[in-house]
């Protein structure tokens, strides 16, 4: 059995001090809504030798979700990819290019079948046999159909991968869908949706940590969103929610009452701010079909609705 001191030694060799690491475990416990006493258990879960492989697929996206995860500070992104997980496929960051990386994708998916996390960023264009999105001569929808079912779990990061997002906004010219919508009812791998445009990196790290800690996905709501991050409405947590407070933005279209997310409590960029603090109404960016249901953004009226294929 590995003693705690050996483990600490191993962690610090990997580039993170024990103090940093305990801080990180505390942040994760907080994000998951766990007692502080869970810290040591998270510590144990995240100091294992084999780093879980992640295959990160980029489809119809803007790379904003990748950028958001790059902003993580507990742990820092370099710690995440060298100490915690193995980011085996990620087109924005990987050194290799072309055929080599294509081979790498399929080989890694086969080698770690049932063990890797598949992170999907972006919607999946499905109209006209998927010709609107191609990588290495293959359609994105065919790549998703091959890789996702082999995963231990699929994490749809962002509103596009969760619900279709921007490309799926009316009139959805490319037939864009979220992971669940594109892969259909027969797709039965555990799926977590982390909507947001982009979602907070704390939500992503918390989801990973929860899986590593408890061996299962965090508790999910009807839209497959983790309750720890999407259990409360933005409005309920908003410090300006009192209508008498002159910073309440409801009359210029704030969508906080219709939006489930952790923005006011976690804030963005290491707790620096969040949109309503910057004087701008919430646009409801983590809700299905928000580009249609929440627009016009600067008005109290309801949007056009629109079809939503889960």
């Amino acid at each position: 059995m590995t003693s705690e001191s050996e483990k600490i030694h191993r962690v610090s060799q990997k580039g993170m001090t024990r103090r940093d690491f305990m801080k990180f475990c505390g942040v994760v416990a907080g994000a998951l809504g766990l007692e502080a006493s869970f810290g040591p258990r998270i510590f144990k879960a995240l100091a294992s030798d084999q780093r879980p492989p992640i295959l990160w697929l980029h489809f119809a996206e803007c790379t904003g979700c990748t950028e958001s995860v790059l902003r993580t500070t507990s742990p820092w992104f370099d710690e995440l990819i060298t100490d915690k997980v193995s980011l085996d496929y990620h087109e924005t960051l990987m050194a290799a290019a072309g055929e080599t990386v294509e081979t790498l994708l399929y080989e890694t998916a086969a080698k770690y079948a049932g063990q890797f996390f598949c992170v999907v960023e972006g919607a999946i264009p499905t109209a006209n046999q998927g010709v609107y999105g191609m990588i290495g001569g293959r359609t994105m929808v065919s790549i998703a159909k091959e890789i996702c079912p082999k995963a231990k779990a699929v994490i749809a990061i962002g509103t596009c991968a969760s619900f279709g997002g921007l490309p799926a906004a009316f009139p959805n010219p490319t037939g864009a869908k979220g992971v669940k919508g594109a892969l259909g009812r027969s797709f039965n791998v555990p799926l977590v949706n982390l909507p947001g445009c982009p979602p907070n990196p704390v939500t992503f790290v918390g989801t990973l940590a929860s899986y590593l800690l408890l061996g299962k996905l965090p508790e999910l709501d009807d839209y497959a969103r983790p309750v720890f991050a999407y259990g409360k409405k933005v409005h309920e947590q908003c410090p300006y929610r009192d209508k008498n407070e002159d910073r309440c933005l409801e009359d210029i279209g704030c969508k906080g009452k219709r939006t489930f997310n952790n923005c006011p409590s976690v804030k963005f960029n290491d707790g620096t701010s969040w949109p309503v603090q910057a004087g701008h109404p919430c646009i409801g960016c983590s809700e299905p079909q928000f580009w249609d249901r929440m627009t016009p953004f600067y008005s109290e009226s309801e949007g056009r609705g629109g079809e939503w294929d889960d």
Partner: protein
Amino acid sequence: MAQANSTISKKIVLDPITRIEGHLRIETELKDGKVADAWSTGSLFRGIEIILKGRNPEDAWLFTQRVCGVCTYVHGAASVRSVEDAVGLTVLPGNARIIRNLLMGAQFLHDHLIHFYHLHALDWVDIKSALAADPTKTSDLAVKISPDAPYIDFEAVRNRLETFVKSGQLGPFAAGYWGHPAYKLSSEENLLFVAHYFEALRQQARTARMHAIFGGKNPHVQSLRVGGVTCEEDINDTRIEEFRTILEETKDFIDNFYIPDVHVFAEKYPEWWTLGGSDNFLVYGEFQESDKRESLLFPQGVIFNGSDKVEPLDTLQIFEHVTHSWYEGTEALHPDTGETVPNYTGLNTSDRYSWLKAPRYLGLPMEVGPLARILVAYLTEQTGQNRVRQTVDSFLKKFRLEIGSLNSTLGRTAARALETQIIAEAMFEWIDALETGEGAYAPSNIPMFGEGMGLNEAPRGALGHWINIENAKIANYQMVVPSTWNFGPRCAENIPGPVEHALVNTPVADAGRPLEILRTIHSFDPCIACAVHVLDRKTARKYQVKVM
């Protein structure tokens, strides 16, 4: 290894191109160990302009911002500018103009750091060679190239890298072109860059906080509005000081890491001062420093045939060609009157081969971006006192180079670093000019009918949005973006686009591992999600694709 001297032509297809934003395919034909011809293909289409039709002009910026999450501010900024042009709003409250400059400036600082260290450096840096480095010698080297840089424990870095490699889980470093003969840095230089790669990953997260201070969050700042910015409450002494602290820290990083590291490439890769240049350059101009439109830190202008003369820009001379793109028709149209119907016909480099259109200025392909900005600014400003001129001159002098040498793969990378330094310096003056307690937003009414143009300089180059408003709704929206200029295909006259042209004559030592091709592609910092757009002036229903 393929023979470098074979006279038989050989095709290399790189798909996907990694370490970029978006989905890009590059095909090249090699002759005698050099690139003889190249074709650039954008392989994703989302149709954002179609989605914008019929919506409120005031909402447009939140949609267009999602064109790109890397240059996450620029499409929002161009959009509000286009609507303000339609409204007839020419002067914004002073604080609004300054906050927008600061947000744009922070975008450049962040974007260029990530590009250099995480998207481009591995074209020049051999990670595996770093394992053989002597940490003590690396420390000496670090002090020599940058005496004021903070201390780094290179032994710990090397041990960390060793542990990582021994784990057998190489993550993003798996299957790189390690050991390739075109890598020229010593093991110590390589280890230095590994350390800086990790340092920069942390710095970019700190630098991005500048956006959060006046924008609520990053990526996808949320504090713009037609008529100004919403963050009036944040224009206070505490927030200004917080911003200044991060700016200082970022400026230190640029001065002590980024610039000296570019110097290392400049010395060790001299042949790249002569490869990968362009003929023509176009700049819309950016960072308006007073209420006068023309008071720009980077002035507007165009350069033809690599001359040293800057000509005035006439936006009416911009046309988009679709002869080699997957759209119906062959007529080149101005963005204001364009009509495009997607029509995917399969990839055929002698016919149609990209979702990108081919923008042309007076019929010519134009390079946009850092190199264009530096050249236009340098050649416009004849006095040695100018900030751009001083920074560029001191760089050129250090390496005994002429201004013309910047027109190259390495020159593009150097120009990006130099403008990062120039912008960071200017930002200190801007933050000092903010007036606490003053407003930053002037409400305006969207007209029933109107049209507007919003031009700016994104980190990757000239960006333009064109809007037509009918019955107070968006009737038509068009974006002509930097990577469409740079990575677009051939035009109606079959003239290659800037990257297709710049790749010609690139030496390729090993056709199976075309590292050299990646250097020139990455020097342009492709952003392909930005580049692929479509406009349909008629109805969305007309939109059809024929699969062949």
